[in-house]
């Protein structure tokens, strides 16, 4: 058996625990990141559990009819905005490894009257989709949580069609600016 030098299971447990126990911040994150017109059509339940770190959808040129993959959909705010943009001829595949997040996304999509959001339980390091099946990948503050980012990015290129696009928000850190006490914290390992 291969030794897990990345402590992948432990890091995933840490992420699972952090996100499973998340409490709503009201809509502080949603209103910090998104303009009111972008939030039109997004149910309050999805706004109140927005956990993103940026607004990549301002730059994502989503076209009608596209198949969008939202990696780490959380409570669904970006999946819902993307679903409105791709329209009924398109679809959003909302991927998360936490069933409770997928339930929130499905519930918010139903509340928004969207039937083009499909929730998928799975790991971004082994995306349960066929090769060349997605036009556009979006993600918000999630790829940094992968213990094996190289593998996750390879999975992205596998599922994207030739010419497919990728537009994500995420964290980066400059290790030279942070003290060892922060860099060695378990949460920093996950990020």
């Amino acid at each position: 058996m291969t030794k897990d030098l990345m402590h992948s299971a432990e890091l995933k447990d840490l992420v699972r625990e952090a996100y499973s126990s998340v409490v709503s911040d009201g809509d502080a994150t949603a209103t910090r990141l998104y303009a009111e017109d972008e939030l039109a059509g997004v149910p309050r339940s999805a706004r109140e559990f927005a956990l993103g770190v940026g607004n990549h959808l301002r730059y994502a040129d989503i076209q009608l009819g596209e198949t969008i993959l939202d990696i780490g959909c959380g409570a669904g705010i970006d999946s819902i905005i993307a679903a409105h943009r791709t329209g009924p001829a398109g679809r959003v595949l909302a991927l998360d490894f936490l069933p409770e997040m997928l339930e929130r996304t499905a519930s918010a999509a139903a509340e928004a009257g969207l039937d083009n959001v499909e929730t998928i339980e799975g790991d971004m390091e082994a995306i349960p989709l066929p090769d060349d099946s997605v036009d556009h990948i979006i993600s918000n503050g999630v790829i940094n949580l992968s213990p094996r980012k190289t593998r996750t990015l390879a999975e992205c290129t596998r599922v994207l069609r030739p010419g497919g696009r990728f537009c994500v928000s995420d964290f980066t850190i400059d290790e030279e600016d942070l003290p060892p006490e922060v860099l060695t914290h378990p949460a920093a390992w996950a990020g």
Partner: protein
Amino acid sequence: MAERAFVEKMKRAGFTGIEIVQRDAFGVDDARLHPLFTADLIEVIRKTVPTDKQHQVATSVVIKAHLATG
């Protein structure tokens, strides 16, 4: 992960046209809203990062890229 490492991993994965289209400071007060920044990590940051650097303990970036059309 550092921005240059992220970009390098994307290149190795086969992405092209990689652009960082937005960068924003992510300070300790922003971090408090994020699940990964646990209360104990926030406490460590407040104690160990100089006050004048706490407005940017990370950077939020928007990254765009695409695959070649083949």
